């Protein structure tokens, strides 16, 4: 059947193929040019993205189902064990929280004395990471909240242990976020012990960050906690980012070779908190004010 069809119009010849492919290559280059320069094509991207939402949900479904089955078939013993653990954990956290409240009040008073702007508590909203693998060329992920929920480009993402990343493309219902381990990501931090300010850069490996701008005689040690300094403007200050895990000082080089391990478990994080701080658009749900 195929053969008879092709005998009729000169086998193997597809009309105007070269012309079409040249035209399409031209359009692609034009698209990429405009996409890279500025966000002219945001609406196009957003509408195709919204159309793909059902597909994302379908791909996400097996993982969700698996989680649900796991949750609903846990044995009673396991649950009791977990409950006990959570209770003791809650006791500990509560005790710490009592102290925190007092400290916070004291901090506000002292800051008022110094006439410094008081640090407001940040409002947060929980978003779930969709089990959808993202771009192969960078470290990014897709979360299930978008501009509908007030998500904006550049918004900070943290989990229970530390900073995860920031939103790079806020869509209507889903958004893409870049992890701090991406090679294009740099984050202003300070050493919690002594306030030494520096920048943490992603390495492209999920469990390692690098600090390329530490001078050889700087006071930094293995085990130092790095927290956000809030200087870049994107991240509120004081969130843990990473723990220094190696410091190599090479005498003839101007900078020491310092690497750190992210506090947040970037590889297996499932839920993240979006931070709405200070001048950011407010939200109704979540938050603690």
């Amino acid at each position: 059947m195929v053969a008879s069809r092709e005998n009729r119009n000169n086998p193997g010849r597809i009309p105007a193929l070269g012309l079409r492919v040249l035209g399409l290559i031209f359009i692609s280059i034009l698209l990429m040019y405009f996409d890279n320069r500025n966000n002219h094509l945001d609406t196009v991207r957003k509408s195709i993205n919204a159309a793909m939402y059902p597909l994302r949900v379908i791909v996400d479904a097996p993982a969700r189902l698996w989680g649900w089955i796991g949750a609903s078939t846990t044995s009673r013993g396991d649950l009791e064990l977990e409950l006990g653990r959570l209770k003791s954990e809650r006791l500990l956290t509560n005790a710490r929280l009592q102290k925190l409240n007092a400290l916070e009040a004291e901090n506000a008073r002292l800051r008022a004395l110094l006439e410094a702007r008081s640090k407001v508590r940040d409002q947060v909203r929980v978003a779930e990471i969709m089990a959808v693998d993202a771009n192969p060329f960078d470290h990014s992920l897709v979360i299930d909240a978008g501009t509908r929920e007030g998500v904006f480009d550049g918004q900070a993402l943290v989990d229970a242990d530390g900073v995860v990343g920031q939103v790079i493309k806020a869509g209507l219902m889903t958004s893409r976020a870049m992890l701090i381990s991406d090679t294009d990501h740099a984050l202003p931090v300070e050493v919690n012990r002594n306030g030494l300010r520096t920048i943490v850069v992603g390495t492209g490996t999920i469990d390692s960050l690098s600090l390329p701008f530490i001078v050889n005689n700087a006071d930094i040690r293995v085990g130092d906690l790095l927290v956000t300094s809030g200087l870049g403007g994107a991240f509120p200050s004081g969130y843990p980012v990473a723990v220094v895990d190696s410091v190599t000082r090479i005498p003839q080089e101007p900078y020491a070779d310092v690497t750190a391990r992210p506090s947040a478990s970037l590889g297996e994080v499932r839920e993240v908190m979006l931070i709405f701080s200070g001048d950011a658009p407010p939200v109704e749900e979540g938050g603690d004010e």
Partner: protein
Amino acid sequence: MNRDRASRRLPIIMSLLVGLMLTMLPLPNAITAFRPDWLALLVIFWAMQLPRTWSVGSAWIIGIILDVSQGTLLGQHALALCVVAYVTVRFHLLMRVFPLPQLTATVLSMLALYQFLLFWINGVAGVNAPAVTYWGPVLSGTLLWPVVMMFLSGMRYRTQSGH
């Protein structure tokens, strides 16, 4: 008539949707760099089998969808897939009579071309990624090609799709 054609295209569209879902499926971190380019494999197969219906235009549209789903530069995968489809359609009569090892070698070079275009565009746009993200998919895609091809051929002759 029209309806008939649409129903014959349905299996192909379904295969592309499944390909897109496989592309988005989460994998463990260790093997995520070796995720094969499912859509490139599908485009090569369908462009080889039905070059009149599935050629550069459809490949371009699939590429745009892929770009949006992966958050890459809009037009990057579109351009690469479009060129791959062009080469396939250009040599489709030859490729159909190739024995499987030779065809697999051809697919290897196509996938390499595809990744090279992505790499090139990334270079121009200033995106840097570890080298394994480029050659990993070529390797796994080539290894999977015989399986994909057998599966799709079986599906095609069972459902009489295409034309």
